[in-house]
Each structure stands twice: as structure tokens, then as C-alpha cells.
């Protein structure tokens, strides 16, 4: 079994983003997806701190600290982009105008619950940012994460043990070994890396898994 690295995962997610989609890429791993969007597709990246039509990172000399993404990294604005205030920005999100949001996660449940903002540790200082708004607002929420924690526990779970970010909000989970559709009908495997079997995947996750029709 050949696990995908982070670049492979980002490229795989990018493949599923259609031309014309309005997309918000979460902080961290999801940000990498931007690097793999096919040049021939026009895709609109939104950043919740107030820009639409986000372009790639600027050259060192062109860095403008009033032109950053939600991860506070310098970005650029494409021709046709625009700026707006936080109210309008989160109306885009909450109002269902964003087609796809890609987020990282601590855990996702087979029915699509998401936990990605709080480990639940007693001494942790909680910080939520826009996570809950992104989770609940986008038409489709994609999650990118390694399937297992460093300790070998599955992050795809029957029920989240970490505090939730949103209920039944995730539609698809991209991991380093497989891709799952999740939701009311439970988890369906739609892709696996070569060499991995559904039985092995069931062992790794410990959750009820179906093979999607396409690959069954």
C-alpha cells in the first residue's frame, strides 16, 4: 500500500473542483489545493477575511500585508477579484453561495459530523475562527486529513469524541489512503490507494464501510 503524501492529496482534491466553482480553502493542508488547480479551469477562491478571486503568493518584493489570506499569508488578487467586509464575506458562506469548502479535521463521523476546532483538552485555550461558519455554510464540505492519528487511531469515526464544529456537514473525506463519501447513508469508499483492500480499511477504521457503486 502506497500512502499519498500531502501534495498527492492536494492534487487529488483539486481534480474534483469543477470550473466555475466558488471555493474556500481552509488554513493548513487545504491551502495547498490552490497549487494544483488546473490552469485551464477558472475557479474562484474566496478568503473569509474579505476577498474573492484570490491569486497565488506574490514575489517577495510584492508582498502587501494588507493583501493576505485567512491564514495570514501574503496572496495576490486576480483581475476580476474584489474586496468586501466581514459581514458580506460570511454572508457568502452562511448564505450558501460557496460551492466547496475544504477543511482539515481532527475527526469526521460516518454521517458527516465534523470536529476540527478543539481537542477538548482541559487546559486548551479555545479558538474557533471561521471553522463553524465554513462547516455549516458551504454547499459541499470536503475534509482533507490523514486517515490515522500518529497513535494509529482512525480519524474517521462512528461518532466524534472531540467537540463538534458542525453536525452532518461533511460530504466527502480525502485521506492519505482512501476517499470516502459520508452522510446520512453512512460512509462509502469511493477510492483506495493501490494495494489496499476494503477489509484492511475496515480494520484500520473500525467503522462500518460500504464500497461505492462505482468501484464495488
Amino acid at each position, binding site marked *: 500500500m502506497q500512502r499519498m503524501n500531502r501534495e498527492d492529496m492536494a492534487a487529488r482534491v483539486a481534480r474534483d473542483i469543477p470550473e466555475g466553482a466558488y471555493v474556500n480553502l481552509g488554513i493548513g493542508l487545504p491551502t495547498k489545493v490552490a497549487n494544483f488547480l488546473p490552469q485551464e479551469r*477558472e475557479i*474562484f477562491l474566496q478568503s473569509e477575511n474579505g476577498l*474573492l478571486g484570490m491569486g497565488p503568493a506574490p514575489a517577495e518584493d510584492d508582498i502587501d500585508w494588507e493583501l493576505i489570506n485567512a491564514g495570514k499569508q501574503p496572496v495576490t488578487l486576480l*483581475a*476580476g477579484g*474584489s474586496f468586501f467586509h466581514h459581514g458580506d464575506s*460570511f*454572508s457568502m458562506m452562511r*448564505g450558501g453561495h460557496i460551492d466547496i469548502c475544504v477543511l482539515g479535521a481532527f475527526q469526521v463521523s460516518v454521517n458527516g459530523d465534523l470536529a476540527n476546532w478543539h481537542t477538548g483538552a482541559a487546559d486548551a485555550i479555545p479558538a474557533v475562527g471561521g471553522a463553524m461558519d465554513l462547516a455549516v*455554510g458551504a454547499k459541499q464540505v470536503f475534509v482533507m486529513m490523514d486517515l490515522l492519528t500518529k497513535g494509529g487511531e482512525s480519524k474517521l469515526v462512528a461518532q466524534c469524541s472531540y467537540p463538534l464544529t458542525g453536525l452532518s456537514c461533511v460530504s466527502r473525506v480525502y485521506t492519505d489512503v482512501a476517499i470516502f463519501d459520508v452522510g446520512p447513508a453512512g460512509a462509502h469508499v469511493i477510492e483506495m490507494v493501490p494495494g489496499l483492500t476494503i477489509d484492511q480499511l475496515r480494520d484500520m477504521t473500525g467503522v462500518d464501510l460500504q464500497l461505492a457503486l462505482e468501484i464495488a
Partner: protein
Amino acid sequence: MIDKISPSLRQAVADLHDGASIMISGFGDAGAPHELMDAVIEHGATDLTIISNNAGAGETGIAALIKANRVRKVICSFPRQAASHHFDARYRAGQVELELVPQGNLAARIQAAGSGLGAIYTPTGYGTLLAEGKETREIDGRNYVLEYPIHADFALIKARAGDRWGNLVYRKVARNFGPIMAMAAKTTIAQVAEVVELGALDPEAVVTPGIFVNRLVQVAPLSVAAAA
């Protein structure tokens, strides 16, 4: 390449359907998308719910839709006008339903739809006929009425200029309901006086970002002159 420019008014409204709810911008003639409304008449869709500030005046626009018997219901703040005879007649005959909404509540409910809120408590209308039967609540010593979002299948709006991504800028008070209706409809169609190259609109001055606009169609900027 994404190009939201429709080649014709006819194509711009081709997917309208009977029973559709349609938001129409404008305050008086300012901002009213007359050419799009003409295209709706030509299209033939009927049993429409119209959401607009007024219920039409004279022989064009919403008045023409009502005259052509295409309108089942009007949600507006100010149906009665000097020349609202087509609405008046159909309303008195029981052929058009009216939901009267205070103008600010109309705006706020459209905004609630566009921004994904489930409901809002507004002070406007409390204790009046227009709040009869509605849920109310006292919050911090003030009384509010619970009002629900107004969504629509389509928004027909008028802007000064737009680009192929759907970014829009408006002209003077013709802006009125355009930006908020664009956010609240499933499909937003804008008629613009000018189509400009991508990047020609100042990103600081774009009023409606393209995400809220599905289609644009260019029409000669005649309607203002005609109205004058």
C-alpha cells in the same frame, strides 16, 4: 473560461418557469430592469410571485406582467401609486394576492435570505396591522416582531456595468434593491448598460461580487432617458 454574459435577453431568461418567485429591483423607475421584464413577458412564464418595492405603474414592467395576467402574488411595500391601475384592478378583483411588507423589513428579510439567517427580530411594524398574528418578543425592553427570510428563484436586477465574472457596479440610486436581491435568489440575472473587461472594475468599488450573479446581459442604456 467562465463567461456569464448572455448573448440575448431571451437567452438570459430562458430557464424561467411557471410558478417561479422573482425579485425585481427598482424604486420607481430607477433601477427597474425594464428590458428583462419585457423578456419575461415574451418568455410566457406565468403564475409568478413578484417581490419588489412596488407593484408596477403605467403600462410597462411589473404593471405589464400583471396586465398580462402572469402574476399570482405580489410581495411589496408600496403597491398603490398614481398609475398602478393594473395592479389595483386585479387586486380588487381578487386575481392578485398581496403581501404588504414595510420597506425596511422587505430589505431585511431579503438580506436574511441572502446571508443564511433563519429568522430575525425586527422592531418595525410591532403593534400594527402588519404584525397581526406574528410572533413577537421583548428584548432588552424593546418589542420586536419575528420575520422570516424572503428567498426567490430568480432576481432580475439592473446595474451600470459588469464583467464576465458577474461583478457589478450600479449608478446612483438605481442601486437600491439590486445588491441585496442578487444575494437572495437562486439565479440572479443582471441587465447592464456596459460590459467591461475583467479587471476594469476597481476591486475596492465592486458593489456586487460575481459570486452573487449568474448571468448578465447588455442592454442599451435607454430606460432612464425613456423614463424622463
